[in-house]
């Protein structure tokens, strides 16, 4: 609004000055020539009028008005700028917030996918390893069972083959030294009587 008033004021001053200049020039071409002396007086008068219109107070007033208007404009613009800045800041903040949320969401999604993939891979690997271990365990159990059966058979066979000898040796060592020959005499004589014929034939006729 103030700018408009100032512009109108300037237009008025320029119009006045233009009118004065036109009058001066028009009077030179008039048929009845004005004398140089009068023309000098006119010019002086114009200067005086101009100096009277644009005096120091007027200039100061214009200066103050301009200053005030400029400050007002500056304040308004500062306020607008502040509002715009705050709005922009808010928008930037929201934008950054959205971007960060979006990035974080994307990253978390990627992380979740990666973790899920790794988890699936690990589970798959564990399943495969478990299956291999179970297979190996089964093979091992079968092999151990076979070896155990084989060892058992060998032990049983050895036991059956040797246990009689072991029992024999045990009996002989356990009771052999404790059987008195005199107690065996009757049995010995009985055995000799039973084989007397063979012994006699071999002794008396064999040589």
């Amino acid at each position: 609004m103030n700018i408009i008033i100032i512009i109108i004021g300037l237009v008025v001053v320029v119009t006045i000055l233009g009118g004065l200049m036109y009058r001066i020039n028009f009077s030179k071409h008039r048929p009845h020539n004005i004398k140089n002396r009068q023309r000098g007086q006119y010019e002086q008068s114009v200067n005086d009028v101009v100096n009277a219109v644009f005096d120091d107070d007027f200039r100061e007033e214009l200066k103050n008005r301009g200053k005030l208007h400029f400050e007002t404009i500056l304040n308004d613009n500062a306020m607008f700028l502040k509002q715009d800045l705050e709005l922009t800041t808010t928008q930037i903040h929201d934008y950054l917030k959205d971007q960060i949320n979006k990035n974080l969401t994307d990253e978390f999604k990627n992380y979740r996918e990666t973790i899920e993939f790794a988890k699936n891979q690990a589970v798959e690997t564990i399943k495969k390893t478990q299956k291999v271990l179970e297979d190996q365990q089964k093979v091992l159990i079968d092999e151990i069972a076979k070896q155990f059966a084989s060892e058992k058979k060998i032990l049983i066979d050895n036991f059956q083959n040797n246990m009689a000898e072991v029992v024999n040796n045990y009996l002989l060592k356990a009771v052999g030294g404790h059987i008195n020959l005199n107690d065996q005499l009757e049995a010995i004589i009985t055995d000799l009587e039973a084989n007397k014929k063979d012994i006699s034939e071999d002794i008396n006729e064999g040589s």
Partner: protein
Amino acid sequence: MKDPEVKLKLTTSINSLVVVGKLITELELIEEFFLKMKLKSSLSQVSLPTISPVMQELTNLNNLNLIRPEDRANLNLFLHFIKTKAPTIHVSFASIPDSVFMQKITDWFRSEINPNIMLSIGLQPNIGAGFKIRTTNKIFDFSLHKYLIESRQILVQLLGQVKT
């Protein structure tokens, strides 16, 4: 085997060729003594041989007088016959038999098999009990060890029943 011309009886204590060998040596000393008695003028130069209980028992059993040269000759001939011609049987026991046991065994062999038989006693602790006889051509095993081996199948069956 042909019987000797001189028939004497053996005592049960003379049951091995070792004893026979000792008796032969003892008889040779006695013969040597009488030979020296003929050759030596002084008794101090000869020593009286000792007569073992086995020799004494043998001479008493056969009514021999060793002072008489014929008896000494007969005994010498008989002992050499025994040493060279008497049948010998090897008998093994699980432990060393005592004299009473040996006397009974010797009596049985001489009464039932041959009156001049000699015994060679062996020791085999592994037979446990019983005895083993080895004659000229045969081996008779009457040991507990053999009985146990023969009964091994029965033992295996019995242990198998216990196992099941």
